[in-house]
């Protein structure tokens, strides 16, 4: 006997993600799902972002790590609300894990919440967390062909930060080639070249954040 099912395999996740979105909107949080390979510079970017936003917008972080709490420890000195999720063997965060993390972070004290996903260019793309935007980091030591190798993630993300441009001269990475490849997969993706070491491009990244925050909540600061 055949039974018709027609059930979306990620439906349960999408439903929980939608609930998370409601919670974030209620607390006036702009939420970003930050994805990259391991070692592309996600945590370093968060450190730079915390420094640059100080006294302006308030940053909060949920960070996913397979085994350790090192990422959260690195961020502690910035006195941010940080929640560390240890995913065990899971290679991505899902909406349910975020729901569990929410009681541990005071969302009323956060303007921009960045969810640092597990370092991986495949699995995180399939799981919505309730974010406003998916954003990515690609570092120049990874190679300029990555957009074509991992198209789903590049297709679904709104912004690409090309990191470690201070190392360009030591690699065969071509910024032109990388951008052409991104353009093929996702013509609408914004791209900013950055170096977390020299600080290049960080101000453009901060203004991207400001624009998105204002787009969601208007220019009026929260009381």
């Amino acid at each position, binding site marked *: *006997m055949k039974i*018709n*099912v*027609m059930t*979306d395999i990620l439906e349960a996740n999408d439903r929980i993600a939608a609930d998370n979105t409601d919670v974030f909107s209620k607390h006036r949080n702009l939420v970003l799902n930050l994805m990259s390979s391991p070692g592309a510079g996600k945590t370093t970017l968060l450190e730079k972002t915390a420094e640059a936003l100080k006294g302006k917008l308030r940053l909060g972080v949920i960070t996913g790590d397979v085994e350790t709490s090192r990422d959260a420890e690195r961020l502690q000195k910035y006195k941010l609300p940080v929640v560390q999720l240890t995913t065990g063997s899971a290679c991505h965060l899902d909406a349910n894990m975020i729901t569990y993390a929410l009681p541990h972070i005071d969302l009323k004290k956060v303007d921009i919440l960045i969810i640092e996903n597990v370092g991986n260019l495949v699995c995180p793309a*399939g799981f919505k967390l309730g974010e406003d935007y998916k954003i990515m980091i690609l570092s120049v030591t990874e190679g300029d062909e990555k957009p074509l190798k991992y198209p789903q993630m590049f*297709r679904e993300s709104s912004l690409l930060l090309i990191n470690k441009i201070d190392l360009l001269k030591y690699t065969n990475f071509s910024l032109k080639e990388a951008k052409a490849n991104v353009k093929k997969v996702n*013509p609408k993706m914004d791209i900013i070249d950055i170096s977390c070491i020299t600080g290049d491009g960080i101000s453009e990244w901060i203004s991207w954040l400001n624009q998105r925050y204002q787009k969601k909540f208007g220019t009026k600061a929260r009381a």
Partner: protein
Amino acid sequence: MAIARNIVNIAVTAAEKEGAKRVTKVNVVAGELRGLVPAQLIFCFGLMAENTVASGAYLDLEIVPLVVACKQCGEKFRVKDYCYICPKCRSEDIQTLRGTELRVKDIEVE
């Protein structure tokens, strides 16, 4: 692995609702953009199905090609090498029609 677990859950729930004793086959439709590796998914599905009514069931994976439409000239085309640019008018304003789905279509039970 999470996808395999969800497939097993969906199949088991549907089978139990119909009072079926055993699931023999699960038909899954997966878009090309999902980038699933059939052999890997089938292996994970087998593991997750152990000790359920879906234990030993055959997993059939139908891969749906990535087909899009140009919003400017209306041209429909299959995306090759993930190039989202209209081959007719070179527009980048593209709408995805098929190739992102991921669902359990039906199951066969006894």
